[in-house]
């Protein structure tokens, strides 16, 4: 008789444990990535998510084509930003408050002090399942300094990856 009591109690505890485990797994899915690392690798190695300064400049003349998102701090944003941009600081991109903005169909362009930050944000958001996102091919300071049109961007097509030196030649000189 006593054994049956112990067994049923144990069974009950296990059932509760099962329920708890399932519930926690379900609730933790919120920030789960929708893309695998391998799918993402394919995306980053075909960098067609970069958008050139020229394309953005053209779009400034016809507002409503893109939404520009500035990833710097509010203080930096107030200092200066690209016309028409809105401010979502890098560490706040996953906040619920910004969800409607990222869910909009309108193409969005991310930029920051450095294009590396913008690209990192792009990777997180894209894997998280948001679409229609591009990255400005260059940081805000490069944007402010460049009035001329696009120069050659090397074999990667990414401004940050242009080599500023001819490394091999430079070493021969020394």
């Amino acid at each position, binding site marked *: 008789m006593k054994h049956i009591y112990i067994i049923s109690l144990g069974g009950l505890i296990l059932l509760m444990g*099962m329920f708890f485990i399932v519930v926690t797994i379900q609730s933790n899915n919120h920030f789960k990535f929708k893309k695998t690392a391998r799918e993402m690798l394919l995306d980053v190695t075909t960098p067609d998510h970069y958008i050139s300064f020229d394309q953005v400049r053209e779009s400034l003349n016809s507002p409503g084509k893109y939404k520009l998102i500035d990833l710097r701090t509010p203080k930096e944003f107030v200092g200066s930003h690209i016309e028409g941009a809105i401010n979502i600081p890098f560490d706040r991109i996953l906040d619920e408050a910004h969800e409607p903005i990222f869910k909009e169909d309108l193409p969005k362009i991310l930029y920051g002090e450095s294009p590396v930050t913008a690209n990192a944000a792009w990777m997180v958001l894209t894997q998280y399942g948001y679409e229609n996102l591009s990255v400005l091919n260059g940081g805000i300071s490069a944007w402010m300094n460049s009035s001329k049109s696009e120069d050659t961007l090397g074999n990667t097509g990414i401004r940050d990856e242009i080599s500023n030196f001819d490394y091999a030649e430079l070493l021969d000189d020394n």
Partner: protein
Amino acid sequence: MNTRIIISIIMISLGSIAAMLPKTKNSSIQLKADELLREMKRQTYVISADELADLLINQDPSILLIDVRDSVDYAQYHLPGAINIPLKELLDPEWAPYVDQISQKNIFYSNGTTLSSEAWILTKQIGFRNNYILGGGLNKWFSTIIKPEFPATSAPSETWALYETRKAASQYFTGSKAADKEENAVILPPIPRKKKTRVQGGCS
């Protein structure tokens, strides 16, 4: 008899727990978006050019430089001792022993910081550890170490001291010593595969 019943109840319960676990699309994804974002914010994975120069000059055996540019760029120039894993091939199984290990520090680098960051983010989210990046990439390496900027005469003494260190490092990397080392094809030590950490020491 009773122990058998208890054991079978436990087994059945464990089995049903396993059956109730949701199937994941790819079990390799371990970090979630918010965790990854937090990791990126901390910036602890960035190694500066000065730090790297120090590590290389002291011939720190615990680091492995990984050039994530394509093989053409790598053939033109690469840092001493670096191996080439083009970003495209990063997750190929053949590189797993290099990228997914616990015995040494991997330092990814490219011309800038974009490709290396991408490599870091991808490996980080799968749960690989010990990966770092060279902040500013080769461009920064050349502008600070190989061709350090001559400070203004009015610069504080720390700036001058830093310049002297960099100039000495530059000579180390561009002088005959470095050239000789580059001639002898770099033979990499065997990279141990990931294994469970065992307690060190004790009687043997």
